[in-house]
């Protein structure tokens, strides 16, 4: 990697100040950023290590929601009694990210701000209709994920926590990319009263909602309701692991399985 300055602020306010340098970068678990630095794909002037900021940590219940601090590691979400009781599908999702090492280092904030199209968390954030808390505002999930590796975050804006509403039912199913084990196609479904959300990750350049499936599930919450719905392949990814057509097919399969898992 190239040389960089290193800062470890203790407050969000200090971190934001340090990130005023447009070439500085925040680092949380480092499981995405460090490999990129090692490959010299990134040349930040400074790394602003968020791991010393206490206010970014922790999982708490707030009314009808679970609020998870940005620095919370995947393993903590996966094993949290609170999350397991309130939104088991979210704990399940976290417990299936990467491998043990990844879950021990990677953070919710890092994953969601990075918005890798093949990452797991964005499906839960969009599929649950979560609210993203940042150093300066709150952003609805529907307004947050803008495109491949692109979010509504400003360069010096820090994701501080995510507020996940507690829903009646939620489920997640994914097909892994055989090589990277990231998501090849995944579907997160949730139902809260008459409100149904279906978020698709892995298959396209950015996580997205599947309106047709949402409608079908609102009318009939069952795997059969989505079994006949075909995802259009047009905008989906094609690579050496699978065609857009294959991914489109997987979206339907994973949607069925996610609904079945949600019960």
């Amino acid at each position, binding site marked *: *990697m*190239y040389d960089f300055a290193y800062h470890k602020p203790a407050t969000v306010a200090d971190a934001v100040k340090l990130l005023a340098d447009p070439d500085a970068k925040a680092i949380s678990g480092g499981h995405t950023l460090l490999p990129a630095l090692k*490959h*010299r794909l990134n040349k930040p002037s400074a790394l602003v290590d968020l791991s010393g900021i206490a206010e970014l940590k922790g999982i708490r219940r707030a009314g009808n929601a679970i609020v998870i601090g940005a620095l919370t590691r995947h393993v903590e979400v996966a094993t949290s009694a609170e999350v397991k009781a309130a939104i088991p599908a979210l704990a399940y999702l976290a417990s299936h990210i990467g491998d043990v090492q990844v879950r021990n280092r990677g953070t919710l904030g890092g994953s969601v701000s990075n918005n890798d199209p093949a990452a797991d968390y964005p499906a839960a954030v969009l599929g649950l209709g979560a609210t993203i808390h940042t150093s300066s505002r709150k952003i609805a999930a529907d307004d947050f994920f803008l495109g491949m590796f692109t979010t509504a975050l400003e360069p010096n804006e820090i994701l501080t926590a995510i507020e996940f509403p507690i829903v009646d039912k939620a489920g997640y199913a994914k*097909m892994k990319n*055989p*090589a*990277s084990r*990231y998501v090849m196609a995944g579907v997160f479904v949730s139902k809260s009263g008459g409100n149904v959300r279906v978020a698709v990750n892995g298959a396209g350049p950015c996580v997205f909602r599947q309106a047709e499936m949402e409608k079908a599930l609102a009318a009939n919450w069952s795997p059969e309701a989505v079994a006949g719905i075909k995802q259009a392949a047009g905008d989906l990814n094609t*690579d*050496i*692991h*699978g*065609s857009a057509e*294959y991914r489109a*097919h*997987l979206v339907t*399969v994973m949607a069925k399985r996610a609904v079945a898992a949600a019960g």
Partner: protein
Amino acid sequence: MNVVAPFEGIGASVRRKEDFRFIQGRGAYTDDFNRQGQLHAWIVRSPHAHARIKGVDTSAAAKMPGVVAVFTGADMAKDNLGGLPCGWQIHNKDGSPMAEPPHPVLAVDKVRHVGDPVAVAIAATREQARDAAEAIAVDYEVLPAAATMADALKPGAPVIHDGVANNLCYDWHIGDKAVLDQAFAGAAKVVSLDLVNNRLIPNAMEPRAALGEFDRTTGDYTLTTTSQNPHVIRLLMGANVLHIPESKLRVVAPDVGGGFGSKIYHYAEEAIVTWSAGKLARPVKWTADRSESFMSDAHGRDHVSKAELALDANGKFLGLRVHTYANMGAYLSTFAPCVPTYLYATLLAGVYTTPVIYCEVKAVFTNTVPVDAYRGAGRPEATFLLERLMDVAAKETGIDRVDLRRRNFIPTDAFPYQTPVALQYDSGNYHATLDQALQSADWAGFEARRAEAAKRGKLRGIGCSTYLEACGIAPSAVVGSLGARAGLYEVGTIRVHPTGSVTVLTGSHSHGQGHETTFAQLVADRLGVPVAQVDVVHGDTAKVPFGMGTYGSRSLAVGGSAMVKAMDKIIAKGKRIAAHLMEASVDDIEFDRGTFRVAGTDRTKALVDISVAAYVPHNYPIDELEPGLEETAFYDPKNFTYPGGCHIAEVEIDPETGQVSVANFTAVDDVGRVINPMIVEGQVQGGVAQGIGQALLEACVYDADGQLLSGSMMDYTMPRADDLPPVSVATHTTLCTHNPLGVKGCGEVGAIGSPPAVINAVVDALRDFNVRSLDMPATPAKIWQIINGGRRMAAE
């Protein structure tokens, strides 16, 4: 001295001695060595598959912090260095030699694959060297690339090497075409199959590394390197590239973290660090990062073949015709030319009595990383072709696939058996390994398991392969006549120390195989010295007299046999010393596991009595015998060895996703005498893991411009633990008849027998979809396409 505990000898599952250091993190790998004043090298590699080098500007790089030197191909040329040599010469059908274009250490006029080394920056730290390497400006004129064999053979294809017409390295054949054609003319049935044997990227856990040193006092060079065969590297690099005599060049291959073939070859980086250490009179180290490994370690396999099998009305094979294109990559790696010829076409009889075989092999240059031997080397390609063909032939003749194989097995009483493709098998029992595997896998009960799986919505299939391979390479005179530029004997020294402990020096090299244990067991078994008192030294040309190294499952069959010869010399000398000490005739001395005895008496001497006498020769037949107790032997094998057996895979397919999972795997192998059953089981397990990797997961993919798309672990699917089923490993032994241990070799059988078993099982699972040919790897996307296509056809 105590008689050795018998459980340490041949047949005992002694725990691996070397694992104590490995599992405690005390292994010493090349990158672990750091010398005073050491510099670091970073190689500038071509980002293009094919380009002309119009200029290399190193001026900015040379001025960067910490930089000590920057060298280009032109600098090397000024020193009159040779290119990287090829160790095997194949001749074309017309008798002319193969095309053997130069392989410069650093590219001079052209680059020919992504990753081709162009220049080297040498600096105080690795990061500084990398910074400098980025500052080297190479002016490329990008040329059209031939990324596939089809592209390279097309009329008007880019010329990769001047003077190599049609990018053809050689056009070789074996067998009698006219006789074969007659056999086909009389056939009741001809079955043909097109096959691709997928290109693989080896990915040993330890990336390649090299550390060059130069001693200004003595003028001696030392290269520490990740090699399977340090003496071979000394020979190739010293004689061909750097022109350093053996006496001035030491090559050390310390602990090596896996090779699988990819660390046999002499690579550019070894020559670069050794040469620059001399120029700079400072140690120079290079360690590959994983991305470099993907684009610079020799790849494996990569065949495109057409196979045709002629059968009579009873399903007996009348003849086999094979046409194969073999990808050599951009340059000839050390042993590349022999892999698709003498390690492939000569295996096409397999375990069958096919009377006539003709095989033509065209080796092709492409703008890709060089291809060379990878675990199994040629035999997996032959086995995949034959065993897929068996299943297709069974289907098309209506004969049961197990029965078809049996009808054509070489009978158990037919050994030695001469095949029509040069090899003479010494021993084997193919019915026995098949029977044992069918039993162990409960082949007969499969349909019930299939029905049960169907209830769960899964497609279940079973497949077998009955395979044979040739290893324990090899008789020097034979391989010499086939084009090898080296002998393939092995060397062993047994040094019995004065107090009775033993040092073994072997020319074999262990990079995971467990030689330090298995070889110690040979000593325990023959000399009666406890395993704990036997040290096996390998991998250092300054310690070991000579050696050809480890590949082709040769270590035990050839290296172990050399040790046996040396031990027999020790015993013979020991008997003479014992006779002297016990005042008996030499002819009356018996030796058994550490004890010399006057026959028929209770008068004995332990080995340690003999070794003390040998090194403190006060009471000693000094007029007849030299003091000391150390013997060296060279062993040149009389034949290849022929392990074989039966592998059975059972798979389940999720028809919705196309995901294949291997439910269980059964291997019954005949590897000759088993020295350490636990190590054999481990070797087979590892080989099967690689075979399943090839069958289901691993695909090296280049795009049309010659860019490596599967250039990292993000896109190249290495098998992980959870991709693998429980593997049941058993052995059925027939002894090798021509080496003193009766051993055949077990290092590659797993990777050779397993891929067709897995693919046959996948095809069986897809019974209802009429699959005829299925190329590896059987990825979910590919399987889904078959299922989806099949469903569509059914619907139309």
